């Protein structure tokens, strides 16, 4: 089983993302609502991949990523963003993110997109 952690402050999107990812029978999915919870889940649940919303109140996606790396957690990270602009994407690459998934995502192919980065 592959553990996928999905981090987003929007509850509706969390729900849809979970349902979409679960279309892949090999995926085990957990969703959290903030950067702080994501840091906790990353240590305690040790996911195989983390999907991080970029714009979140409190701690944003890039901050969560650098905190993870500071704590020595090397789990691959994909950013999920509604601002999929090139300059931002290039910035994410230097932040050691594996890739970017644009919002709105296609629910049917989301699992396949994630699998491509594993």
């Amino acid at each position, binding site marked *: 089983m592959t553990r996928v952690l999905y981090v987003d402050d*929007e509850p*509706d*999107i969390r729900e*849809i*993302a979970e*349902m*979409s990812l679960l*279309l892949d029978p090999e995926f085990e999915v957990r969703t959290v609502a903030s950067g702080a919870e994501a840091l906790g889940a990353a240590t305690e649940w040790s996911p195989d991949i983390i999907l991080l919303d970029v*714009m979140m109140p409190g701690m944003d996606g890039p901050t969560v990523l650098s905190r993870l790396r500071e704590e020595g957690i090397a789990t691959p990270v994909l950013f999920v963003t*509604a*601002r999929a*602009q*090139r*300059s931002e994407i290039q910035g994410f690459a230097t932040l050691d993110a594996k890739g970017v998934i644009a*919002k*709105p*995502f*296609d*629910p*049917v192919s989301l699992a396949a997109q994630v699998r491509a980065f594993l």
Partner: protein
Amino acid sequence: MLKGTDIRRGLAGLMLLAIPLGLLGFLMLMRGEFRDVRELRALVDQSVEARAELAELLVEHLNVETGQRGYVLTGKREFLTPYQEGKAGIAATFASLEDEGRREPAIAQGIARLKQLSQRKLAFVDGNIARMQAGDTAGARQAVAEGEGKRLMDAIRAEVGRLDDIERARLPQIINSRDRSRERIEQTTYLLLGAFSLLLALVAIVTGRAIRERQREFARANMLAERNRVILNGTVDGLLLLDHDGFIQGVNPSIERLFGFDEAHLVGKHNTYLMATPPKLEDSVAWLHSVGSAGVSGAGRQMEFTGRRRDGTIFETDVAISRIESGENSYVAIIRDVTDRKRIEGMKTEFVSTVSHELRTPLTSIGGSLGLLASGAVGPLGEKAARLVQIAHSNCERLIRLINDILDIEKIESGKMHFDMRRMRVTPLIDRVVAANAQFAANHGVTLKAQPPAWPMVVEGDADRLEQLVTNLVSNAIKHSPRDGTVELIAHQHGQSVRIDVCDRGGGIPQEFRSRIFGKFAMADGSDNRARGGTGLGLSIAREIAQRHGGTLTFADRAGGGTTFSVDLPIICETAAERAAAKPGLPAVLHVDDDHDCLDVVASAFEGKAAVVSVATLEEARRAIAARRFAAAIVDVSMAPENGLELVPELRASQAGLKVLLFTAIDDPHAEGRVDAVLVKSRSSIEDLVRTTMRMVGDAERNAA
């Protein structure tokens, strides 16, 4: 051409010349008149003198007569004094009269007669005097008494009287002619005065007119200068007047307001003084010299620079520079503070970006829910429910496309669409577009056929944007194709460009829509749009992407119905060395052939197997051999005017173990023993060539190992 002012000026000059000439004429005339007057006066004087002399002559004769009578009657000698004096006077007076009287014959004759009478009289008197002195007093008295002397005297008196009459008659004549002369002078004077007055009046009028005109021109120039001054001083934009090399000659008050430097401080400094990061002076001057005048290329040249204020703070500016072409070139730079505009642009971008984010977040939920429902992943739906979900889902996707397109347009318009330009081959681009649109084509029951370029063409571009461009054309073509139709995607060389044609068999583009097809929200008609689900922004974005790649996007009717959209992108010519360097680890193969098509086909056939360096001349081949090692060389024989066989010994000598293949159209080049293999173009395929070459290269490597 003569203008009115020129004519008037010439006239005024002529008149001014006429005045001294007229004056000179007048002077001559007056001198003549004065001479006449002087002569007249002399005549009058003469006449008066003549009459006086005649009177005197008479008196003198009377004196002589009286003296003679007195002496004869009394015998007193003292009577001889008036006689003698009279005689002397008569001689002198006659001398004077004769001198003057010569002019008029009547007077001259009179005087002659008078002289004759006078002589007779004097002879008679002298005779009597002589008788007296001789003592013949009686004879003398007898002679006196006889009255001869008196008769002579009367004759003299009568003659004098006649002469006097003549002289008297002459005077009015003289005076008359004098009056006539005076009248003539008067008339001439009046005439001249009149003429002068007229001339002066004309000169005054012409000069006045010229002066008035000049005053008007001066006033107009003043007005223009004042207007320009007000415009320059009142304009919000800063204005710099630059000399030929860009040194500041003058500024307007806005410059002082923008930069904080006063005019006195700036004049004489170079314009780069106002820049936060000044370029090299010579670069700036060279750039300035390349600026055309406003008349030549619109509003001159525009640029942006970061300005530096006196207090060291910086701000963004837009500058328009125009050349003033009169005598020594100078320039006007109009500087606008765009801080506010940039801020507003930034706010707008931020706003659009935020709004799009805020829209995308709920759309993610809606689209996700509908997508999951429509896919049947969460269980089967009733027929009507499934249809409704499908409608909601497709419209949600359309809304998402619309937002993406609006963002792209916004980026294009604000100049913020960035292009990550890299050298890329056209074939993978075609492959990606086909893959991305296969499902969409299938959904529309349309067949998508692709024909990649015949040889590996390279363009410089942003792979994602070019894919967006071609995908846009392909999806348009699919949308407008009839069911069971075919959309063709063909890449080929067109002049110096790669042309990618997207051909459909749709209904074509309505004539009235053609002129605005690339406009924003351009759609043939509303109903069409709803049927096809487009945003009306796709072609506008597509053309912008093509143009930003130095290319074009055009369309044309297709023979037999339908439309072809064509993207032309400039071909980048990779040098052979670049191509070889791009594939490390592959064996290097030199291909010498003067047929460029053959070079391309062979290079393409070796792709992934060998790094082919393609050269078209023996000279290039020699340079390539000198530059690097090759595992094999494929050489054409007939390369008019050169012969490829010439190269063979050089290849053998320079690179040991090199395999040499002849690939030629000549059936029997008689090269056995000199080369490793001979392949004739018409008998061996390109695949044979690749196979043979790779086998030989493998042999060479094994031998080396």
